[in-house]
């Protein structure tokens, strides 16, 4: 069989290096060029004075001081986290059984259901928001249905332009972002684990709680992450269906760059919110560690 020689050692090292290099290339370009540039820009801007220049002139800590000193920003951030948290919880909780069904029960129907689950999202987001407006509106589907069943006498204004509308619309919009990661995680679970739990006397719900859920936790957290973070920064949905009381921090940041023409302050606000979310994520990550990333 193959005789080992020093040249083999070298070529092996070289080809391995070549492969690693190739594998690092696309990601390296995107991260080091594009992402770091954007990141550097926002951090840099955060410390600049708003002035005639594109990127401000002079350095200051004033932007961050303003962010920290005005309780409004914290209030709005917390409100955003609350709404995003609600959205995430709703999305993940309602999506989990679907992912579970896909992973363990769908059988030959798996592809079909996956398709059915993603199909609605091929229509544009803004269209779907409008569709929700039709559902939630004063003369909308929901009000009509409630009136038809006699639950209410006159249409309610309590559906549209409320935080609840934001939660429902976003929970709908992010459904595949929760379903797919959880499905992907569950799909790797050996069936023998649920068998072992049942064998030890665990009823299905206990098996779910103590074995299946912890096993799929990386997927759940991944799903939660890709729902939670973007919803915090969302400003379109609150603007379209949320009414004044669901303004989120994304709108505030957005407005600094457009309407208020104060990029440095917008950047400082963005950096502050990013740090807040990062802190939250790190907390969640430590939870993930507890459940153990299996390798």
């Amino acid at each position, binding site marked *: 069989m193959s005789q080992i020689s020093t040249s083999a050692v070298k070529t092996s090292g070289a080809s391995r290096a070549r492969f690693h290099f190739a594998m*690092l290339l696309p990601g*390296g370009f995107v991260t080091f060029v594009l992402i770091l540039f954007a990141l550097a820009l926002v951090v840099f801007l955060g410390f600049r004075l708003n002035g005639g220049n594109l990127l401000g002139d002079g350095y200051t800590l004033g932007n961050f001081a303003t962010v920290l000193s005005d309780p409004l920003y914290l209030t709005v951030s917390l409100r955003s986290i609350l709404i995003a948290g609600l959205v995430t919880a709703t999305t993940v909780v309602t999506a989990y059984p679907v992912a579970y069904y896909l992973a363990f029960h769908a059988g030959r129907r798996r592809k079909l259901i996956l398709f059915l689950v993603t199909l*609605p999202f091929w229509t544009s987001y*803004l269209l779907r928001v409008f569709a929700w407006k039709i559902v939630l509106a004063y003369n909308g589907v929901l009000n009509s249905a409630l009136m038809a069943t006699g639950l209410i006498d006159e249409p309610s204004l309590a559906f549209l332009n409320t935080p609840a509308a934001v939660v429902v619309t976003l929970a709908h919009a992010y459904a595949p972002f929760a379903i797919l990661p959880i499905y992907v995680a569950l799909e790797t679970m050996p069936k023998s684990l649920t068998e072992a739990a049942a064998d030890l006397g665990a009823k299905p719900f206990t098996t779910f709680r103590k074995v299946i859920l912890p096993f799929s936790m990386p997927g759940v957290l991944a799903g939660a*992450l890709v729902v939670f973070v973007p919803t915090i920064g969302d400003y379109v949905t609150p603007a379209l269906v949320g009414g004044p009381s669901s303004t989120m921090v994304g709108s505030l940041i957005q407005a600094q760059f457009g309407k208020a023409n104060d990029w440095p302050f917008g950047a400082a606000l963005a950096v502050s919110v990013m740090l807040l979310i990062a802190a939250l994520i790190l907390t969640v990550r430590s939870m993930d560690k507890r459940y153990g990333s299996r390798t």
Partner: protein
Amino acid sequence: MSGGAAAPGQGSRWLGAYVLLYIAFLYLPVSLIPLFSFNDSIQAAFPLMGFTLDWYRSLAGNEALRNALVNSLLVGVSAAGIATLCGVTISYMDVFGRNTTARAISAIARLPILIPGVIVGIALLILVNLAGLGPSLLAIVAGHVLAGLPTTVIIMKGRFQAIPRSVAEAAEDLGAREALVFWRILLPLSLPAVASSFMLAFLTSFDEFIIAFFLAGSEQTLPLYIWSQLRFPISLPVVMALGSVILLASVVIAGAAELLRNRGLSAGERR
């Protein structure tokens, strides 16, 4: 049959019912889109006013809208493709490459999810101008790669970590270099994750418009078009017609694919 089952239990039937309900929830608002695309009124509101094909007619005549759709599909597929490629390679290097560069890249790649779209848009606009390229569909693709990347990295990393280490080792042991282990073992084993990553990255791009706004040159994407048309109520029904066409087209394509697959399958079974 989870939890081991003598019979395909009660539980699974309830679960099936739930899934049906959930799918109904997903389709509840979406099904209104085709409905109102045939409604003879600018207002998308009940009661329905009567049947019309006018909106489809103006859709047929609206080249800008069709171009926007084509652009969106192009951008979506390219951005999702690149984001998935990057997600796969970055996660691979993070999980299997075990060097600090790889780990750093993987950490950075998950950051854009934190950066507001407006900043990504502005930053990339400055960057493409610096590079002398200027805004274009290509720039939008770059922007949407950033938007989709965190999702793909998060999903792929989780999946790669779930593959038992010994499976990859067995392949190496048999003489497969890393590239081959990756192609023949890790990638096939992660196919559901790859497909999911692609799908989510595509959906992200297909709906995104703030980054797209900053990076658009003279060609726009569908969400840009729709967003800017919000001031013109008259265009909503046309957009609904377009949405309906997209739905129909995807159903037809998927149906055809399913049909072909089933044919292939039954042919295979006969053999």
